[in-house]
């Protein structure tokens, strides 16, 4: 291929892919970097889609993550509209939808995830929220004034519910779990979250998921396991994600809930790495799991870029972090709550939506859920990083005062 010298190819130009490209330069790699992406204009502020963008009345678009000037200054070539269709690990190239074979000396897979589809009986996928196009469709729904039923009470479902309520849209949420986000935050916080949504007028049904959905003239009919049929003029499905890894089937790269990597970001194939939402690590129970959150994609993506540039395989040890914005509150989840954890109020009060809850087993903290108190986040991360116990954490949080004018 005369057009491309074999350098590092990054597949996917969103948070992880672009962070990996920057990490390559930061780590001293001076050769060619080619970033492929299926979208014509890839790499934008995705978290905003379910937050401010949906709540705002204007037609603002999420900001691109990189300007062409910055990419050019770093010698990073982004090829939009180039979908990776296959990976050849023997001859070392990526095959694109244009039939090109793009050679690589190292390749970083950062193709992310797609919204898990929920199909009607007729086989049509329900609307989801993952891309700018999805946002445009959902904005039209808001303008229509129709009530909206959201299937799924995960981060997307909850954020969309809150954003739609701020636009005075009638909202009903169907959640599979007994309480929203229960395994992540525990009973107390999950119960608080449910009450928060109901207090803002969301009709919230828990412990249920559709048996089937049919689409008719005036909307959808949702069949529930208890025999009820709910009618919904508008539906949105927020039921999780599927890794964009099908293009690697048969390539020789191990896939299990995503592209399997070790702590350094390496797959089972030498020279093939993965980063961000698409990557899956051992879950401690013989399987694999992904970390589908923004700051992880960036930090772990950067880490893989550094490893590739330096010819190293340092393990990535970032503390898991996800934030969610609902009804003017920012809820921070740091670390990973375990099934055995007890939930302990470390500071503040659930009644005032200003609290820090620790999740610990035998006094050892595994995770912290915090509402607002953003200025305390750095302390919280340090507590988890150094393996603090519950008493130490409560003491540390008591001494970090919160001036009332900040958040």
């Amino acid at each position, binding site marked *: 291929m005369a057009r491309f010298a074999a350098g590092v190819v990054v597949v996917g130009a969103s948070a992880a892919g672009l962070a990996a490209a920057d990490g390559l330069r930061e780590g001293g790699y001076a050769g060619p970097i080619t970033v492929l992406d299926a979208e014509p204009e890839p790499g934008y502020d995705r978290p905003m889609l379910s937050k401010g963008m949906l709540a705002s009345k204007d037609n603002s678009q999420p*900001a691109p993550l990189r300007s062409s000037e910055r990419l050019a200054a770093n010698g990073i070539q982004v090829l939009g509209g180039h979908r990776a269709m296959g990976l050849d690990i023997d001859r070392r190239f990526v095959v694109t939808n244009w039939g090109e074979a793009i050679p690589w000396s190292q390749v970083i897979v950062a193709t992310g995830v797609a919204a898990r589809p929920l199909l009607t009986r007729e086989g049509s996928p329900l609307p989801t929220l993952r891309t700018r196009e999805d946002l445009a469709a959902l904005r039209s729904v808001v303008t229509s004034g129709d009530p909206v039923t959201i299937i799924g009470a995960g981060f997307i479902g909850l954020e969309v519910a809150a954003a739609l309520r701020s636009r005075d849209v009638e909202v009903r949420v169907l959640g599979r779990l007994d309480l929203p986000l229960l395994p992540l935050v525990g009973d107390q916080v999950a119960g608080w979250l449910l009450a928060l949504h109901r207090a803002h007028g969301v009709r919230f049904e828990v412990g249920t998921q559709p048996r089937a959905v049919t689409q008719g003239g005036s909307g959808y009919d949702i069949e529930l396991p208890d025999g009820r049929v709910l009618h919904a003029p508008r539906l949105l499905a927020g039921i999780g994600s599927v890794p964009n890894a099908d293009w690697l089937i048969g390539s020789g790269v191990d896939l299990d809930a995503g592209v399997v990597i070790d702590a350094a970001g390496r797959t089972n194939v030498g020279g093939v790495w993965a980063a961000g939402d698409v990557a899956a690590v051992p879950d401690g129970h013989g399987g694999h799991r992904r970390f589908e959150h923004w700051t992880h994609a960036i930090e772990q993506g950067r880490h893989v870029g550094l490893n590739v540039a330096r010819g190293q395989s340092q393990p990535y040890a970032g503390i898991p972090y996800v934030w969610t914005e609902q009804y003017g509150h*920012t809820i921070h989840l740091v670390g990973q709550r375990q099934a055995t954890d007890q939930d302990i109020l470390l500071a503040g009060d659930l009644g005032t939506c200003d609290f820090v809850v620790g999740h610990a087993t035998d006094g050892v903290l595994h995770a912290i859920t915090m509402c607002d108190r953003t*200025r305390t986040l*750095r302390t919280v991360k340090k507590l988890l990083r150094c393996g603090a116990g519950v008493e130490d954490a409560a003491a540390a949080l008591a001494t970090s005062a919160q001036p009332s*004018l900040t*958040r």
Partner: protein
Amino acid sequence: MTRVVIDPTRCTGYGICVGIHPEVFLVPEGSPVAVVIQDVVGDDDLEDVQEAVRACPSQALTLVED
């Protein structure tokens, strides 16, 4: 001297920067954007500020060398 600058046309007040380094960044009550409360970035702060620059979904932060 290294300084950190917020582009107010990009900043949307996420506050991710505040979470990463609360002594350098602040979202004042009622403000739609973040502000820098300590613009000179010393060696101790550099790593965290660089992380904030990377993390901002609006990519509103830049480090400037004077």
